[in-house]
């Protein structure tokens, strides 16, 4: 799994790539914690994610709860169809705000 953090306006964008599974989920958790130290508005760019399991989902849910507690949010962008399906099946699609592109997610924090 690749993870990269960058700032976009007052939000932090977490750019993910590769496989998010039980082995890599702790690294994702650390990256999300680091991002939350900078901003409670997180955007997860998932264009490069080919695979995510429940360990990865739980890290995202944890970050979501923490961000919400700080009046922020975690928004997802550019999910591939298979990854989007995992969010639908797990019911998390109704919890996370999703955008087709990262730029849309950045813009959504302006509104």
């Amino acid at each position, binding site marked *: 799994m690749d993870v990269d953090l960058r700032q976009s306006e007052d939000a932090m964008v977490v750019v993910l790539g590769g496989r998010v*599974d*039980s*082995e890599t989920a702790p690294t994702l958790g650390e990256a999300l914690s680091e991002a939350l130290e900078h901003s409670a508005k997180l955007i997860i760019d998932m264009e490069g994610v080919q*695979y995510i*399991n*429940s*360990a990865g*989902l*739980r890290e995202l*849910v944890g970050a*979501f*709860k923490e961000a919400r507690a700080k009046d922020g949010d975690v928004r997802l962008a550019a*999910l591939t*169809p*298979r990854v*989007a*399906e*995992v969010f*639908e*099946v*797990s*019911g*998390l*699609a*109704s*919890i996370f705000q*999703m*955008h*087709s*592109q990262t730029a849309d997610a950045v813009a959504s924090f302006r509104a």
Partner: protein
Amino acid sequence: MKSFALRVPAQVRFISQVVEVVSEAANHANLDSDDVFRCQLVTDEACSNIIEHAYENVAEGTIEVRCFAEPKHLEINLYDTGVKFNPVEKMPYEFPPNLSTLEPGGLGLQLMYHYMDVVQFLSTDDHNHLKMIKTPSNRLTRLHKYEMQVYESDQGPLIIMPRGQLDSAFAFDLDHQIGRIIADGHRLIVLDLRDSTYIVSRVVSTVVKYWRLLSQQGGALVISNTPPRVATVISLIGLDSVMEVFSSRQAALDKLASMQSNR
């Protein structure tokens, strides 16, 4: 029928080897790549549960996988000798999830039950046995209650023609689809709702988002052919007062053609 088997130490770093065996068996069962992906995911989840709950992350146990593949039918069996546990009792899952009570493991179980045709926990005194069966998914009856066709009309505009229930999953898919269409340079789109049976407000807001965007870019997104029940929803929401809704696809295409010629 062909069988596949492997036994590995019950540690996270060996899960990929179990998943590999299941992938090979799924390919042998002629499952398509989406179903192979689903089998990989549930195997990963099941192994994670075994490590976390049966072996409680400490015991030096093993996980054994045995698969039986025949055309369009895959049986996956996972065995462990950890603490006897029934995940169904241990990890009840609410759908959609309640974030305050979300249990680790419950998500994985939800994925297993959704993706597999059969999920059985068959523990005995000396081992736990998880049996799962997978046959090819039927896209319409399993995950999605809709289908979506996208094609270019003879006159040029793109036609998006969904069929079935336009639910929140469809809204997300539509958002993706139109985003890509626009990225490819198309600016004229007809959303033909003739075969839709139901529409949720999230679909309407997605349509309005792209209607607005395309209007700003000199393009257009129009709706045609709304069946009575869908038309009622569209009217109640007030969408028909914001954007044009045509009674037939041809009327929509004629309108877009006149827009093009007036440029």
